[in-house]
């Protein structure tokens, strides 16, 4: 069921909108032109993921000592232990854990943001 969570412009560019939808804590992120909604709970220690950051990360590399930054804007990093999740799929990245975050479909119509829960 779709829920109107407000205007696109109300989502802070450097953070997330946090809200409660039917008893579920939800975080809505705006990354560039994309909008993502996740359950506002880290599966690891139940930290508020909406206070996390969306950035890229260091991709696995076969060469010790070398860094390769990538996935910019696709990695949600928990504000506590820094666990990294793919913000689109909710998967914990690179086999660090089998756990995943709950993600919800989002649509934007006429400047209004709808989260499907």
């Amino acid at each position, binding site marked *: 069921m779709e829920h109107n969570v407000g205007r696109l412009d109300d989502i802070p560019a450097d953070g997330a909108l946090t809200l409660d939808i039917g008893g579920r804590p939800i975080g809505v992120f705006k990354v560039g032109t994309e909008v993502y909604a996740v359950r506002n709970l880290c599966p690891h220690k139940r930290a508020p993921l909406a206070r996390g950051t969306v950035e890229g990360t260091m*991709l*696995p590399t076969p060469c010790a000592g*070398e860094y390769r930054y990538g996935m910019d804007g696709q990695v949600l990093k928990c504000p506590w232990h820094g*666990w990294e999740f793919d913000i689109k799929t909710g998967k914990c990245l690179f086999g*660090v*854990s089998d756990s995943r975050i709950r993600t919800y479909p989002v649509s934007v119509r006429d400047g209004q943001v709808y989260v499907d829960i």
Partner: protein
Amino acid sequence: MKIIDSDVHPWVPGDIEGLKPYLSKSWQMRFEGKRAILPDHPLRPPLAGATSIRRDTTTPDGGVGGSDPHFLRTDHLDVLDIEYAILSSIQAGKLVSLPNAGEAATLARAFNDYFVDKWLGVDTRYRLAMCVAAHNPVEAAKEIRRIGGREDVVAVYLPLVNILMGNAHYYPIYEAAEELGLPIFLHPTGTEGAFQTSVAFAGGVPSTYIERHSCFPQIAMGNIASLLFEGVFVRFPKLNVLAAEFGFGWVPHMLWRFDQNWRQFRREVPWLEQEPSSYVLDHVRFTSQPLEEPEKDEYLLQILEMVHADRTILFSTDYPHWDTDYPQTTFQRLPDAMRQRIFHDNATELFGLKSNPASGAANGA
């Protein structure tokens, strides 16, 4: 059951003087001119003679325990039915206390030549962990390539200087060891905390023997963390390391902490594509002595399970030192399959040992 003893210590009588036949005239004069010795740590064990060498291993002609390859085989190899004994010279390890790289490399080479000459020919059960001086890793790599191809040289004893093992300083040594299929053999040098070039203890300087001896595991822990996170096992995928005489009761904690931290800080070390513990279990081994004595016997079995002892633990006696572990009083309760791994198979795999047809009391040249 045949036993492989992964930690036996031979001794060169007379210190540097005893190595003279293996030093050039110029080096003899160099050492003589400065009255050089391989120094003891000032914190001595509170034992008779203030030495860690057991009095009951004194040779029939009154020599220091471990100084006679003929006596050691009857006093130790025959008694325990040892198939192979891995010789590492802790006396040679003291060369890390020397500030001069040329002297250290020269002594390492002389020690190696001494043991090849005086020991390896005596009994086919002797296998050498050849020594290198880490001061100059390029010279050390040359030394490895000089004698490391011998069948009776099965490891590279790397007495550590105060540089963590993940540092590129050591890479020439790893490259040569990997090339020759030799594991790196680590052991306390007995000089830790006493000399500026030796490994420093965490937090400061211990003030008694009991304190410094209790803290040896710190050294292995710090160096394994360094090897792992600097990606040494990614750079040198065939390199293996044996941590001898550092204990292993602390290993479960270390493995779990590594994995836990990797889950949060993986991006710092993106070359580790699997859980850190898997690299340690694949590449690092530990000797059993001095076997930890937990409050309850069953705890030891639990720890063995936690460290995957069927892959990682190698039996060792540490003969002729005061804390020798003998099989008849060590690992009293052990499942048969694990006993076979710990007392034998883990060592044959690590050192690439073939079955020794000559092993047994009748062996010898």
